[in-house]
């Protein structure tokens, strides 16, 4: 795979890692938050941990759209699917996410609700076209990467005059979450691996505030392992040199101003929400978007009387701390006992980008190794 395989070269990785070992100050700790689940996934999948010095630690961030979606939003979607005769379309990633009391979209589907997994927002449009007599609701999630495709679908729906298509919008914004993490100061980190594909859309300039306000080094990093390691080295150098800049390692896909056509499309269809709840982070102001007045016809929250559900998080689940970078998954008492990918108690155990799932599926060998 061009533009993939080159960035997965193990030999180069070891050489780059050696450079990190060389340059690192053995006297201090380096704690870098990988903001994105994509990075979490890559770190575990490729075993990047193993290549890093003992005193360099990756701290997980809230950048997994599945993990930060509050259970109440899923419950509201389930209620909708059960009370109205709608077809609920959603990305497969959401199907197993716990929605409180052991429920999930998967189980609602098993109980008989018409819930369909789609691969693209355009598939949801196709479902709406094929079922003109039924209401089709697209349960949309994602950061800025996934938001423009939703906007595109809404614009097409209006152009076609589709009367049975709406979107239950749960799109969230990266910079507010990052600012929140930094402003709370709990995470105790020395640098940030910045999002790769989100940055493709919003551009590297979007993180200027983070760096300047909180004096935090940030390197926008590709998702391939060499990208991660190179970006880690770049962060090590910023730390060592006392710099706090937005650097862009992922130059092959991220421009300073991002994808302006996609930004314009988002601006046309969406507007900021005054406040939105994030799982783990709580209510964050201006941290999400909603469908604007011009496109209100396509807003499921306006078409249907959707309840605002408050779901208590599971007792013992430390997802909030994991998502804030305060705790590691294996500090959770439920980890790998009550909470497994098969019966996830918190959202971080669901998505393969979730820190707990990645730790469980890929990372357990560490403890195993010590036992063997």
């Amino acid at each position, binding site marked *: 795979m061009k533009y993939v395989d080159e960035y997965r070269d193990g030999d180069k990785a070891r050489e780059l890692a050696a450079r990190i070992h060389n340059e690192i100050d053995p006297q201090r700790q380096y704690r870098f938050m990988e903001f994105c689940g994509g990075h979490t996934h890559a770190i575990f999948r490729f075993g990047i941990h*193993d290549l890093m010095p003992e005193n360099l630690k990756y701290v997980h961030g809230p950048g997994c759209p599945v993990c930060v979606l509050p259970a109440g939003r899923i419950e509201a979607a389930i209620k909708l699917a059960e009370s109205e005769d709608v077809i609920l379309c959603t990305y497969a990633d959401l199907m*197993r996410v716990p929605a409180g009391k052991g429920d999930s979209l998967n189980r609602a589907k098993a109980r008989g609700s018409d819930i369909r997994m789609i691969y693209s927002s355009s598939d949801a449009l196709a479902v709406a076209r094929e079922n003109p007599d039924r209401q089709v609701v697209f349960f949309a999630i994602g950061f800025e990467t996934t938001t423009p495709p939703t906007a595109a679908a809404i614009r097409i729906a209006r152009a076609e005059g589709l009367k049975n298509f709406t979107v239950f919008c749960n799109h969230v914004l990266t910079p507010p979450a990052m600012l929140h993490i930094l402003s709370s100061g709990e995470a105790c980190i020395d640098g940030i691996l910045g999002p790769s594909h989100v940055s493709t859309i919003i551009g590297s300039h979007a993180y200027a505030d983070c760096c300047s306000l909180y004096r935090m080094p940030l390197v926008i990093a590709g998702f391939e392992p060499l990208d991660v390691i190179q970006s880690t080295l770049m962060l090590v150098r910023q730390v060592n040199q006392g710099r706090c800049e937005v650097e862009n390692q992922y130059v092959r896909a991220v421009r300073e101003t991002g994808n302006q056509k996609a930004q314009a499309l988002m601006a046309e269809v969406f507007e900021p929400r005054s406040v939105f709840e994030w799982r783990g982070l709580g209510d964050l102001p201006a941290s999400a978007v909603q469908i604007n007045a011009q496109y209100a016809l396509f807003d499921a929250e306006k078409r249907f009387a959707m309840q605002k559900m408050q779901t208590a998080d599971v007792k013992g689940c430390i997802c909030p701390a994991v998502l804030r970078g305060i705790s590691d998954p294996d500090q959770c008492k439920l980890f790998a006992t009550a909470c497994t990918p098969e019966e996830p108690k918190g959202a971080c155990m669901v998505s393969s980008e979730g820190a707990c799932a990645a730790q469980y599926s890929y990372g357990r060998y560490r403890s195993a190794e010590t036992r*063997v």
Partner: protein
Amino acid sequence: MSRLDIKNGLVEMAHGSGGRASAALIDGLFTRHLDNALLRQGDDATLFEVSAGRMVISTDAHVVSPLFFPGGDIGSLSVHGTINDVAMSGAKPLYLSASFILEEGFSLAELEKIVISMAEASRLAGVPVVTGDTKVVESGKGDGVFISTTGIGVLAEGIRVSGDRAEAGDAIIVSGYIGDHGIAILSSRQGLEFDTQIQSDSAALHGLVADMVQAVPDIHCLRDPTRGGLATTLNELCKQSGVGMRIHETDISVRAEVKGACELLGLDPLYIANEGKLACICPKASAAKLISVMQAHPLGREAAVIGEVVADESRLVVMQTTFGGQRVVDWLAGEQLPRIC
């Protein structure tokens, strides 16, 4: 007997009634294509001769969607799937039974295609379908065609292949490229269509197994990594034998297209289903011999040792990544579904 309009006809409830329409369907479609001396006995049970010794039996329900996919269909798959389960005990498959659950409204022409493909697969494998049954369920209570097959086979003396025999030090062999079947199915699944040359690897592996057990009668384990893929199969063997495994990503063959499709859909080739591959655990000393025998067989040409069995109370499969890191290769959790994140 009533006539069967195979060209334009649809499956009707009457075809499952047990009456004259059922008889017409069985005569005109099933026994016609699957024809063999034993099936021709025409009774509800079929008689065959056996010598004294050990036999094996295995069954599988086949419920694939779509019914026709690149490289096969539910007919050939239902033959291969059960032959392979029988072969994975080291046995020589003898006979198959087939039970069909048809959905009202299914096209008789498509059904005939499936039965012909089943007959061809069975003939090629030399394992006849000797008895069968057909039921019809109402439209909306089935999915076109389900086929359950059961296979029986005989096991030569001295062979003892079982999932609980893996021992620390054993070699782990995989017979070829993994993930072809699952990706071929995904490529033709509604709503996810993509173009690819990938074909299902669906094939009957008993010939390969026969060569293998002849060369190395002391093979410890054989298993076909179907649903759940190689990852799940290896974990099953670890659980049964109470061992762990250390495997090497670089030694596992995955086609570029399969890798590509997996990257696109957020899947992992280790969890993708195969229908013509096997995993084999054998004493390390026999591995080289087995590999050479396997590579001499058309269905084992890319056979390779991919790792070794280790003592591990946690029964973990740990993989050395191409990249140089290590990671746990866990059981499949939930379903393998395309991801966006």
